[in-house]
């Protein structure tokens, strides 16, 4: 199956290894991966901050790039998929042609774990924890995957098949970690207090690492853990599913 990789801007610029592992994983599962080179960002930062015109400019480019391709569009980042599926139709509600294209592109988009479970039909794809064996990991569901796309259980299912670690239940696992995009820049004290609640509940559960599918949450949680001098490790799901993956 040919898939179009939407790597997302945060993965591209800050976590390129997550992009590489995503490609390696999809290829191991028999996909032929294309990377539309003109892609940039989905436009979410502007949309959520109250700048719909700026969001439309960037979103319009996303639609142009991916409308020219075929097959499923897969991203290792649920929030960006939620942006395309949920917010694009709202952003382009008054532009009939764009709306049609946005819907057509949106229907082709998938968050990586959901794509593997629902489209490729794998409940287990192996993998190994990239740290010392016997680790305890806490799964943090990104809000836009859990509540927005309704696919919060997909990463958990795949994690069950990962060797070298054990998944632990965390209290109030569904609570937001406080990243929230520009929220984290504008209201840092609230954002950090929310991160602390998440980090502390992971520590109370005895976790050595937190695993998620949103590198925004990961950057926020790891940045806070570092600032507090906590030993918690933070990983993207593909760091476990395809630990040695490279282009």
């Amino acid at each position, binding site marked *: 199956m040919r898939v179009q990789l939407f*790597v997302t801007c945060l993965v591209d610029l800050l*976590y390129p290894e997550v992009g590489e592992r995503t490609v390696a994983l999809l290829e191991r599962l028999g996909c032929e991966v294309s990377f539309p*080179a003109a892609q940039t960002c989905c436009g979410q930062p*502007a949309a959520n901050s109250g700048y719909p015109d700026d969001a439309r400019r960037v979103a319009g480019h996303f639609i142009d790039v991916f409308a020219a391709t075929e097959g499923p569009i897969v991203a290792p980042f649920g929030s960006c998929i939620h942006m395309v599926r949920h917010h694009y139709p709202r952003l382009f509600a008054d532009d009939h042609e764009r709306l049609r294209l946005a819907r057509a592109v949106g229907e082709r988009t998938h968050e990586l774990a959901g794509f593997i479970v629902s489209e490729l039909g794998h409940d287990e794809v192996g993998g190994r924890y990239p740290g010392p064996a016997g680790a305890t990991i806490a799964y943090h569901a990104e809000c836009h995957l859990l509540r927005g796309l309704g696919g919060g259980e997909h990463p958990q299912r795949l994690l069950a098949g990962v060797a070298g670690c054990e998944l632990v239940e965390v209290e109030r696992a569904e609570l937001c970690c406080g990243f929230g995009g520009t929220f*984290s*820049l504008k209201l840092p004290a609230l954002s950090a207090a929310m991160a602390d609640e998440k980090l502390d509940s992971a520590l109370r559960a005895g976790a050595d690492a937190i695993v998620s599918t949103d590198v925004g949450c990961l950057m926020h949680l790891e940045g806070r853990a570092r600032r507090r001098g906590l030993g918690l490790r933070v990983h993207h799901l593909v760091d476990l599913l395809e630990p040695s993956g490279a282009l």
Partner: protein
Amino acid sequence: MSGRVIEPPDPRPDPAVRANLHRAAASWEAGRARAHELVDWETWRDRAQAIRADAVANLPELVDRLEQRVIEVGGHVHRAATAAQANAVVTEICAAAGASMVVKGKSMTTEETGLGEALAAAEITAIETDLGEYVVQQLGQRPSHILAPAVHLSAAQIAELFGRLAGHSFDPDDTRALVAYARGALRERFLEAQVGITGVNFAVAESGTLAIVESEGNVRLCSSLPRVHIAVMGIEKVVRDWAGAAHLVGMVSLAAHGKPAPASTSFVTGPARGGDDGPGELHLVLLDDGRSALRGTELESALHCIRCGACLYACPVYRQMGGHRYGSVYTGPIGAVITPALEGSGAEGSKLAELSSLCGACVEACPVKIPLDDQLVALRAAARERDPRRAEAAVFGAWSRLWSRPGGYRASAATSGRALGPLWRRALRAEPHGWAPRAPFPFAGWTAERDVRLPAARPFHRRWRERRGG
């Protein structure tokens, strides 16, 4: 005089309040789990949403019908376009009744209008009779939660207050003694008061019946012991018929406490007739205060709200801050959405929309499925249009121009890579593995609380081009 936004939002966590809220939120979560077992939740939500959508879509017609029916059963109806008008009407009725003291049931609508202050200005003392509301009134505070006014306080704080009022100490764990004290202090007042003032949860247009939900029994006393009963409601609380009202009474209880019915619901249809016990006079005050203007806008569905308080408990930002730091009467996600619509909320009201990480927990919790996250985003956009913040608008303007072209995007990636050369890295005190404790504008807010991850020297798109070509 506005009772809506009292002070600017103070967007910081409040650790003491957070601990108290933690307990309340845990109890709400247990209630939610129970509610999902008791009923087919999604079916109930769909029905509740449909009932509320029908009411708001047909608001003028249903409010007219309600007015007509209330008059037919012997009540008086007063329409108030603004909070000030509502307060003036209530004050006049109290004065005409010769009341120098009135008893009140908990009502967010009268908090919204600032009725307590308006009555005080006319030298009429309003005694709050809901336990939580009584506590915050005695402390000179306002409710911090739509449903649980004193949820921000601990039992120890309440015991200390009552100890001061009573002149002897209370054991914070002895809830019975605390409640007994409040009951004793209030009981005489119910008997003395000439006027009782309550809110309204739902008003049935077909019969002119006011449904008032409570858990303590004080509303029943306010609406039955005094000679005059004044009920104040936002116009959107109307529902078409009894079947709809009955469903919503169940729904508000399920969403708030996970119980199939409230501890007590009063159904008031007109004043006492013939030789019946009860108030000889019933006044219904119908308050608009900016509500009608929401109809036909993206925020219309906020009028569907049944004031269950679920979105507050679900909201991680509310849980950190507590209600008072919002600075507004209505707090939490629904407060952030409706406050700017209320007349006189001003620029401070629109700042409330920033108090969300857009996590969607409020939408999931809402029993009438209000898309609060989308509405918060719409309010942010409206605020920017009214008052463009130049620095931020300029950043997003430049950003969207660069990032809507692959060349601009790649150039900005390359520039940030170059900017992170040795000099910058030293200035930021960057660690070799890509994290730094500080960052320049617009990322300074980030590093106030967290280390920042620096852009990779070779982003993914470069790696792909180098290794895979095309």
